[in-house]
């Protein structure tokens, strides 16, 4: 049940006489200053948690307004200027200020050092700096929104962004640029931490798959984000000083901007899914009490996705006037990326075989993830197929496809991970029944919101349209109805999780009887995670379904 030789000693030994030694929330005080100057990875994780929820709410309001506007065909509720700002706000905030930091910077920050038996990340001050960069970037973005917004879409395509838009493009790009450096530093911190801070006995193939996935994510953060930074900087140069590197009037090529942008933004899609896979590998094993099926394959699939993710970007540009031969190369590589993703799904499925399955909230989210990610992944094949994509690109089919991955995949996994580690983070249990209810409602709401968009997309409904021909209305109405259900499903956990902070049941050190070092220390953990450095002598997921059954049948 545990991966430690001496875990009882760790749990029992307490240097202080009190029954409960201070945890990370108490040690160092609870003043605002103690939080804003903390270098504790757990506190930084929580700072991120609050910040990304803040940005999520703004972006969600933008989405809600858009869905309301789209209930009727004419653009009658908001003006087209407003609508364009709304989807830009939604895209920019969701991508850079919610999804990219969502699991890595919150749950990742919180559990990575604990999972590898370390006291903290390698560079705790740098970790705090990442958060401040994130916030500084966020303030620029918010500023850009408050002073009139931006209407370029999150893709900032030139020459519209560099020469034609009359909005605060530079401020928004600056925000993304700064936040980008925050995520580079987070990735750097994780890479070094995973390489250099593992506790004795924790070899690479004894690492939980969460670590493998986040390592793969960090590779992308470190190697892709700088290209986004320089691309946005070049775009801003044109806007500020007329240094038109992509300006067609000087012989510049707007399509080069797209190459550079997607060299970052396609791998970034995997920043937005690998951490979700990371969470699912943890929860699906825990709640089926099973060793993961094909550990090595799942681990290497993460790395394969990270690497292959870098060679597929051109599939966003099949109709951009790029060479059709390049299109073929990128189409082929896109199909290749689908294989390791499929391997993961198959392995999770087989993990359930001969398990001892319970349906706690994190498990429901994990199963939801598999379902929605499968649909998202399979529709990815449609848009990787060259001629089909020519028809589908820039339609609602693509919108539905990436929401299945990013919301159905990443947000679902984030919710699952948040529930899974909530006892560790807060020291309190969440209300289980409400959790299960929210997970089910989310599943229904999500599918109702986004499935109609596939059909609408094949019919030819273009994305980023403020008004549309009336034959698409039925699907927009269904989608908006689903969105309101989805909204409720996301709101519910916020309420009961906040409630549980005060009124939830006190959580034991290991409520799920999970393996993994983070469960071998009290909930909430002490400031430096472990009282003694743990020593590991076996691989992860050392579960026994038979033993769990005995506990059920013969009592604890």
């Amino acid at each position, binding site marked *: 049940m545990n991966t430690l030789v001496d875990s009882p000693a760790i749990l029992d030994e307490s240097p202080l006489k009190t029954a409960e030694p201070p945890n990370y929330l108490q040690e160092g005080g609870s003043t605002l200053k103690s939080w804003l100057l903390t270098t504790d990875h757990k506190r930084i994780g929580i700072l991120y948690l609050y910040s990304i929820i803040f940005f999520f709410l703004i972006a969600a309001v933008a989405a809600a307004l858009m869905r309301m506007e789209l209930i009727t065909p004419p653009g009658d509720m908001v003006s087209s200027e407003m609508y364009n700002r709304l989807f830009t706000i939604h895209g920019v905030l969701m991508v850079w200020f919610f999804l990219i930091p969502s699991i890595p910077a919150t749950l990742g920050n919180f559990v990575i050092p604990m999972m590898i038996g*370390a006291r903290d990340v*390698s560079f705790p001050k740098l970790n705090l700096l990442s958060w401040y960069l994130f916030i500084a970037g966020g303030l620029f973005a918010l500023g850009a929104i408050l002073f009139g917004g931006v209407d370029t879409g999150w893709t900032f395509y030139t020459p519209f962004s560099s020469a034609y838009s009359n909005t605060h493009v530079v401020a928004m790009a600056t925000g993304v640029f700064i936040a980008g450096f925050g995520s580079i530093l987070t990735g750097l911190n994780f890479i070094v931490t995973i*390489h250099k801070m593992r506790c004795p006995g924790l070899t690479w193939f004894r690492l939980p798959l969460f670590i493998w996935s986040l390592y793969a994510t960090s590779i992308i953060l470190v190697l892709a984000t*700088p290209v986004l930074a320089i691309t946005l900087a070049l775009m801003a140069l044109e806007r500020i000083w007329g240094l038109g590197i992509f300006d067609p009037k000087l012989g510049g090529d707007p399509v*080069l901007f797209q190459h*550079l942008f997607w060299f970052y933004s396609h791998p970034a899609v995997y920043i937005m899914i690998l951490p979700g896979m990371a969470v699912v590998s943890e929860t699906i094993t825990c709640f089926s009490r099973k060793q993961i099926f094909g550990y090595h394959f799942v681990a290497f699939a993460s790395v394969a996705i990270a690497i292959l993710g870098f060679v597929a970007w051109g599939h966003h540009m099949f109709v951009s006037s790029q060479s059709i031969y390049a299109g073929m190369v990128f189409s082929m590589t896109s199909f290749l990326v689908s294989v390791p993703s499929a391997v993961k799904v198959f392995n999770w499925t087989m993990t359930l075989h001969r398990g001892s399955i319970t349906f706690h909230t994190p498990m429901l989210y994990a199963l939801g993830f598999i379902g929605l990610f499968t649909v998202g992944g399979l529709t990815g094949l449609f848009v990787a197929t060259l001629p089909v994509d020519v028809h589908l690109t820039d339609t609602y089919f693509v919108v539905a496809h990436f929401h299945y991955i990013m919301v159905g995949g990443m947000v679902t996994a984030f919710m699952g991970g948040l529930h899974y580690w909530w006892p560790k983070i807060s020291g309190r249990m969440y209300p289980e029944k409400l959790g299960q209810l929210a997970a089910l409602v989310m599943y229904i709401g999500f599918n109702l919101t986004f499935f109609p968009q596939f059909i609408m997309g094949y019919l030819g409904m273009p994305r980023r349209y403020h008004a549309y021909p009336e034959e698409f209305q039925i699907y927009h109405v269904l989608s908006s109805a689903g969105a309101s259900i989805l909204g409720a499903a996301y709101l519910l956990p916020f309420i009961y999780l906040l409630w549980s902070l005060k009124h939830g049941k006190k959580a034991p050190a290991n409520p799920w009887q999970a393996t993994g070092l983070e469960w071998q220390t009290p909930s909430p953990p002490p400031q430096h995670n472990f009282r003694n450095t743990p020593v590991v002598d076996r691989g992860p997921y050392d579960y026994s379904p038979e033993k769990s059954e005995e506990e059920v049948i013969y009592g604890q």
Partner: protein
Amino acid sequence: MANSHVAVAEQFDDMPQQQEASTLGMWTFLATEVLFFGGMFMAYIIYRNLYPHAFAAASGHTILLYGTINTGILLTSSLTMAMAVYAAQQSNQKWVVRYLLLTIFLGCCFLVIKGFEYHDDLKEHLWPGPNFKQGLPVQAQIFWVLYWAMTGLHALHVTVGLGLLSVLAWLARHGKFSEHYNTPVEVSGLYWHFVDIVWIFLYPLLYLINRY
């Protein structure tokens, strides 16, 4: 990123772990930097490939003398930086400071010369836009956009490096570095050498097209 105390930072077990982590961290950061500059190098490759004549014509207006002298200065500053790291490893307090100051001096020389060069470039109307120098092909402006962006960003990196080195020199003067603890010097050295490497490529790409 590394603590300036001789004591091992609390998240680490021992000094080797701390040093390895810092060095690995810097290498990771440099990989990031490779791709940061890489975006512009790629734009350069694409456009030079599309407009070889315009690039040759435009490059002819860069000031080869300044560029060459600056290359020599930066290469030499890499030598003094390497020597500073070596002196720190030998616990040679006096020479750490001297080599660091020498490196800073060379870095400043580079920036001053670059400043003169920029001044002359501007006087020649080589800033792209409506007042761009007459008689050059339109696409020459693309070259000059790249010139300003690449050298400007490089100069920014030199400036950051000078800041880092100044802090190091100050710390070294207070005897912070020895054979037991010299990670900051070594890690900053890596950064400085990287900045040098960027220039090693900028020099032939910007200054040396069709000089015959």
